[in-house]
């Protein structure tokens, strides 16, 4: 198993190398148009700079671009994470229900909901959600991450944590304010995520329910709930997690779109502003940050899968 991860890591470095190459080409293309010089030297310089953490400076406010980017991406991650928790709480039980009562009335209802959720254009739903507080008469902010009256210094970049760190100044107000700000954007993202999770869970559960060992479990005289808790859940989790891993980049794409509608200060808004103001250095940095995160999360998810599932563990041994 250790060997496997060494190998994974090795593949990861190759992929990361290709990514830096892409980022370099983009930066080169957007920044200087003179390509007469030796490209390899340029690339070498670029790599050296990256190794030292020198990504360049934003042309808008002369801040180090990597710092701006990381803070923005942390907000995006916060949004995704929050939406993910919401979606998991709703989606998994619904998907499980649909999978167990396959082809029943409930199943059709749930699947219709999921189908609708996957077909809705995200930015449009976001616009509708920005109108909701106005129509419902709720006091709910529809732009930004946090009210500008709170001065929250950036420590970790994650506003939830940062706002807790300043709790001696504002008590929990800053935290709650951020929470209110994040609810609407994350529920838009959650609509998509819920549909995806329902679809995946239902598929995984149906696949497991068709297997022979579930028949055997019924033949043992176990009750339906016993079968679900003891056999179905454990065997259905790995494929769901695996499929969700492949969706991370889509989720981040959607989160970025939603941010722009809600002017939530995350990676999407940052890129949007940078492009509008011609600060193209942000693009190559964004590639490195976001893709780096996705690559890392891939490995972590794999590790998690190996821990929870003996069958996957087994297949690694077979590879060696």
């Amino acid at each position, binding site marked *: 198993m250790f060997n496997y991860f060494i190998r994974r890591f090795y593949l990861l470095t190759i992929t990361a190398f290709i990514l830096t190459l892409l980022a370099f080409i983009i930066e080169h293309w*957007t920044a200087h148009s003179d390509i007469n010089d030796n490209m390899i030297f340029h690339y070498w310089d670029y790599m050296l700079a990256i190794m030292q953490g020198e990504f360049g400076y934003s042309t808008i406010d002369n801040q180090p671009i990597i710092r701006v980017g990381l803070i923005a991406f942390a907000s995006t991650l916060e949004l995704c994470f929050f939406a993910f928790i919401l979606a998991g709480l709703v989606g998994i039980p619904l998907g499980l229900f649909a999978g167990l009562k396959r082809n029943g009335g409930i199943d059709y209802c749930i699947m219709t909901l999921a189908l609708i959720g996957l077909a809705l254009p995200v930015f449009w739903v976001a616009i509708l959600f920005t109108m909701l507080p106005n129509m419902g008469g709720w006091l709910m902010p529809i732009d930004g991450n946090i009210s500008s009256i709170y001065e929250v210094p950036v420590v970790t970049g994650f506003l939830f944590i940062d706002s807790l760190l300043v709790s001696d100044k504002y008590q929990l107000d800053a935290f709650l304010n951020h929470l209110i700000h994040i609810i609407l954007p994350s529920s838009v993202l959650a609509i998509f995520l819920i549909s995806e999770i329902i679809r995946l869970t239902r598929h995984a559960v149906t696949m497991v329910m068709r297997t022979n060992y579930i028949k055997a479990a019924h033949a043992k005289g176990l009750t339906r709930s016993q079968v679900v808790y003891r056999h179905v859940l454990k065997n259905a989790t790995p494929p769901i997690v695996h499929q969700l891993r492949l969706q991370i980049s*889509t989720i981040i794409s959607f989160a970025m779109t939603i941010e722009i509608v809600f002017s939530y200060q995350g990676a999407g808004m940052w890129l949007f502003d940078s492009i509008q103001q011609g600060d193209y250095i942000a693009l190559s940095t964004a590639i490195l940050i976001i893709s780096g995160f996705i690559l890392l999360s891939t490995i972590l998810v794999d590790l998690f899968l190996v821990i929870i599932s003996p069958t996957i563990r087994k297949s690694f041994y077979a590879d060696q």
Partner: protein
Amino acid sequence: MLINNEFNEQKIQSPLQYIWSIFRNKSIAVMSMWAVVTLIIIIIFCHYIIPYPPSLQHPNMLLLPPYWADGSEQAHLLGTDDLGRDTFSRLLKGVQLTLSGALLITLVISILGIIIGATAALTQGIKASVLHHFLDALLAIPTLLTALILIVLLGMSFENSLLAVSLSLLPQFIRGIYICIESELNKQYLIALRLDGATNIRLLRFGILPNIIEPLVTLLNRSFTMAILEITTLGFLGFGANMEEIELGVLISQNLDLVYLSPYLVLFPGLAIFIIIIIFNVFSEGIRHAVIEGEE
């Protein structure tokens, strides 16, 4: 009560006929098929269907609501916008542009994707390995980011946004095809076909493609959905079609300021996107189910 009580000389149907006979029995699937046909007719004959030219302004009829609301005009089915342009005509024009763009993208990436994916799966050695790592790297970049980068590099226009969307969706499609072919290659009948000395082309044509219809339909549908969503997203963000070109995303962003004045102007384009995607999703689900049942 015997059921087989007479000579039932059944004709053995070809697989396509069989799938069609299953498909025909599902009313929802058939309905979605007709809806798809209608959409394609709209694409082709849009110019003749729309009641007014999309940029014709009716200065005395601004911001009319749709026909069921108070103060509407029968002449303008879905009302007018702030310059008095007919919403229905603009909507159809938008559907035409967006849908044809998405269909074009799906067609292009399905052809390219099958070729590249098959090459990656059927060849070994350095070609496959380079392709593989390159794909891994591309897959790690979110599609929206790829599209944004390409738009910045190529310049903003509708054609470039189509190009950007197809390039950003291509890696996912190739990966999907690659996984399908890879799992198919391990099956016994393909090993048998190989032992018969089949060339790679023959292997692909007779061994693999007929057996990956179901995942292929899912992949195509997914690419199509994402294509529509991304074209409209880019249009909405102002990176795709410019203001003169009528595209559903652009329509939404144009009318965003009027959302409290006349919410229909934002509502309808979004609904149109939603309905298009739903129709195609149901259609592909119908095909997929028919294929699955046909295989069983």
